[in-house]
């Protein structure tokens, strides 16, 4: 199956977010792919508030089934969450469970004025009432496939498709 070009999708996504950027707009990337995207967006959109990163491992709802994810990264929110307008960034929006965990984590830092969501790919099949305000593209994929963002030499981003049995679903 021919996957879309991640660099082109990122350019489209940047264009969609740009009109809404204000002085109190903050970007928060979700590890790992969302952080790569958020770094690029942060640079291209020339945001003044520093970039935030989230590892939602401590807020996931599948701890009881699969335990703690190895290599948990430290979350870092270097701006005042209280009253800020946050755009969460993730690579693939699927069940919505990661976003639920991320929203819960953000509220433990403070009460933002608003949270919006940007995703490079929306592959549908939501299990929670969550939607993205900014989407690179919509893709319909079989449930046994896993879509992942990868970072190559020189920081070039690309999308890859895996069989779920070979890799854990992120």
């Amino acid at each position, binding site marked *: 199956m021919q996957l879309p070009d991640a660099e082109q999708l990122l350019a489209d996504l940047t264009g969609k977010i740009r009109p809404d950027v204000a002085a109190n707009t903050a970007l928060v990337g979700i590890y790992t792919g969302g952080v790569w995207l958020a770094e690029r967006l942060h640079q291209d959109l020339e945001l003044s508030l520093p970039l935030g990163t989230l590892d939602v*491992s*401590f807020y996931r709802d599948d701890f009881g089934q699969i*335990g*703690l994810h190895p290599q*948990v990264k*430290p979350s*870092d929110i270097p701006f005042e969450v209280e009253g800020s307008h946050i755009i969460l960034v993730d690579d693939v929006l699927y069940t919505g469970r990661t976003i639920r965990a991320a929203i*819960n984590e953000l509220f*433990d*830092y403070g009460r933002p004025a608003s949270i919006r969501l940007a995703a490079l790919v929306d592959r549908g099949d939501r299990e929670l009432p969550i939607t993205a305000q900014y989407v690179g593209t919509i893709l319909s994929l079989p449930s046994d496939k896993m879509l992942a963002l990868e970072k190559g030499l020189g920081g070039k981003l690309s999308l890859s498709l895996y069989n779920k049995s070979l890799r854990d679903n992120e």
Partner: protein
Amino acid sequence: MNNNPQLNKNGELQHLLTTEGLPGPILLNILDTAESFVGVTERDVKKVPLLRGKSIFNLFFEPSTRTRTTFEIAAKRLSADVVNLNIAASSQSKGETLLDTVNNLSAMHADMFVVRHSQSGTAHLIARHVRAEIHIINAGDGRHAHPTQGLLDMFTIRHYKRDFHNLRVAIVGDILHSRVARSQIHALTTLGVPEVRVIAPKTLLPAKVERLGVHVYHDMAQGLKDVDVLLMLRLQNERMLSARLPSAEEYFKYYGLTQEKLALARPDAIVLHPGPMNRGVEIDSAVADGKQSVILPQVTFGIAVRMAVMSILAGN
């Protein structure tokens, strides 16, 4: 198959009983996970929902305020429910056996026991006895092991020195009676510290301590030379009565860490102590409160390390 009672059949950490025999990757995973929890403990909301609904029992058969409190705080910051059992004042004094106590608490659907006991091997005994879904953390057993203290010391060392592979580390004091020293030595050698020294009078060293892979010194001037990290041990008052030492003053004169003795180590050396300190016995106040002391950061990091251990165990 492995015979390590701490690991499950997949080689994952099932119980934390001792740092001895734990693979390096497992130790590093605990330190890395703790790194993420340090950020949590610095927020306004110092709590994550990870262990919501889990019941953790602190079983302290030996008095301890500090260690019990740090485990309690760690469990609460993971949203677990914590029950503290002061065993001296409970059924044990009515004649109930240790394993009966554990059986009764297991029947109350405990998920984890944090065990401190004056008898070496108690945590191992309980770990062999409980159902597979219950996890045991050894919070100190006799002279044997105090693994979370050893791990938080490793975390502190890595925080300030970044890497273990070019360090000289000296452990100073009552090695003979110290479960902390044993846990430190096993963790340091597993993590690749090339030179671990122990500095103590002959009466406070175990026989054949060299077999643990350490260099033995009886003299601070020689032992502290070029050292990067000083791990001070608490001198327990009861040792003084056992005729192993002439007096606290005499001990301080030869082994107490003063600014003058610290100057023999590297200028950027750090000083750790597991607490509670005997000022003027094993450590001088000027050092304990000095700029090379990282004794209070150790306490802060201890919470994050215990959160990491609890969450890794609960997930395996």
